[in-house]
């Protein structure tokens, strides 16, 4: 039963951690657009794109 002295606070600590994480995500507007988030992974970010070849004349 001595294990409870450690396990009970540990469990509560983990649970509270999850709760704080949830409230934090709520505050950060993470639940504002649930549908869009699923689609957004399919969209390429502009800055990640390979830059287009230099269209300078005389290239080819």
């Amino acid at each position: 039963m001595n294990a409870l002295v450690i396990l009970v606070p540990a469990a509560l600590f983990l649970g509270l951690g999850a709760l704080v994480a949830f409230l934090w995500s709520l505050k950060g507007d993470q639940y504002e657009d649930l549908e869009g988030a699923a689609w957004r992974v399919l969209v390429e970010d502009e800055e990640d794109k390979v830059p287009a070849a230099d269209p300078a004349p005389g290239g080819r």
Partner: protein
Amino acid sequence: MAALTRDALASAGEEPFVHAQPNGEKRLELSVPEAHCAACMRAIEGALTQLDGVTGARVNLSTRKVAVTWRGAAQSAGSVVTALDRAGFAATPFDPAADDAAADEDGRFLIRCLGLAAFGAGNVMMYSVAVWAGLGGEMGLGTRTVFHAISGLISIPITLYAGQPFYRSAWKALKAGRANMDVPISLAVLLSLALSIYQTAIGAAYAYFDASVTLLFFLLIGRVLDNRLRARARGAARALLGLQSATARLLTDAGAVKTIAARDIAAGDRLVVMPGERIPVDGVVEAGASDLDLAMVSGESVPSAVMPGARVGAGAMNMGARLEIRATATIDSSLVAELVRIIEAGEQNRSAYVRLADKAARLYVPIVHTIAFAVFVGWWALADNGFAQAVHNAVATLIITCPCALGLAVPATQVVAVGRLLKRNVLVKSGDALERLAQAKIAVLDKTGTLTLGRPELVDRADEAVLADAARLARASRHPLAEALVRAAGAGPMAAAHEVPGLGMEAEIDGEVWRLGRGVWLGAQGATTDALELWFRRGAAAPVRFLFRDAPRPDMKIFVDGLKARGLQVHLLSGDRRAVATALAADLGIDHVAAEVMPADKVDYLTRLGAGGAKVLMVGDGLNDAPALAAAHVSVAPASAADAAQAAADFILIGAPLSPILEAIDVSRAARRRVLEGFGFSAVYNVIAIPFGAAGFVTPLIAAIAMSGSSIVVVLNALRLMGGRAR
């Protein structure tokens, strides 16, 4: 509609929708109903971020809105709408009003409560399961009491905080002398908490801390779903109302044109109405000649010609040339305002509808509370250790009969149904609209703009060469009949034609005078004013007639047959001429036709139909339909409908086809069945559970299993609506 809004905004001196941010940026929110996929999102955000000075653009697909921020004066509401229009998306700016922010805060509070309850339910259950497992005797009295105490420490603050939505609502209801579903919920939660504290204090075997928190957790899920649905419905309604913030062009004495809000128009003001704009208030034409499209106002499909001196009504669309009118009324005394008043009267009528859940609560609350009271009195009078046992069993009865499944059945089903319909391009404006649609037995359909597209189409294309010649003149005109002629003729050259206001187009080609326009102007024999027609004449040749008709929607036959197959009686109700209406009805196999009906008479017609107790579904699009849409038991409007009609309707169709209405009927009927199944299940569950509670057999373990089990069954049943065919 987009074009109208854009023009109005581009010329507006001030920016009513743009908000200055604390960091110096300007922020604008727009509703973009056509955004529905990753490609749309990318196209919209791409188009906006390319604009000068734009610092951010983010699409919210759930609400179909875009938020744009920019710096400096390079952009305005008008330029943003124009950019979106060019990218292929019709957008409407809207103003997130103060009450929206409050509603948003309510939603966040509910989610915070839900998070807390989830944390509490999960953690308390760890100790509860340990206690239940140790009830055989392995667990010492001390450990059990400590576990109960820890459970109490977690659940007391959480129950008190996260239960607030229910306590407040119950208190409000009790103060008003009523009892709603939140009264038994609050009683069960608070009594089980108090009982558990008492049991822990005396070191007893049973504590119901887990029950009170888990109960809140499940009920909060229902509450959050319900709140999301309402927020979405409110958003849809607000986006539509945004369209109504109309502006008008005032002609000042100095001859300048000034943009003012339509509500500031005074009688006697001189106003300019450009082609493509609607006449803001009733008035008299002072200068200019043009054709007015009255389809939205009266349902009449043939445009009417106006000259100086003619009286014009608010809501008519100017199709030809610039008009100057003198206002004879303010916006409050105009035809449109009159219609709005009829709409409001109809909506009050509709608010008398009692939602299924409230009906269930009215039945449920007195029965359960009477039983719990009887249990208390019975045990007190009969049992040996009287009072303590009586309290315990009465509370146990209240806990186990707590309307958890009842609270979840309706929101879970409606959220699933509304989500499914949105994917099929049907916007649902309120949750109880689904319940009302399921009851519809009679369908009343408007003609112009509803069964038809409200867009002319060439009927006879006898001579291709003549058509090609006429199209050369027509390409220079913005008149809808000319545009229909061009659509029929396809691509080709444009003549250097000029418009003769109110009469038609004229050009000089190869030394001949070519004219396209009114029959009278061309001296044609047999020219009429009550048909959709254009006449064409080359020099001295005989005039040729082009006949048009209002283009039908592609699937209207399927739609009408589908309505009949679903057991609905179909009526056609039109403001158009009798001959046109009966011909269409015969085509579609509609037996009941009423033509040449005035707006107020449409309401009477619906009232007569509904007098027999039959619930009426109204489908319409015009301003003249709006009162009928509001007065009907349930109503649908296409997205092309007049603003007032969209505001009055319960469902909005985003695309051109009508058949999504059939799916909406199927889904609403399936949803009603799921809700009733949920109620039936709850009733059976309670009939079984109440004797156990009354007899004192409800241990915390049984309470936990019974409550969670019943809630999960109801939610799973609601989820069945998601896939497959709705039957």
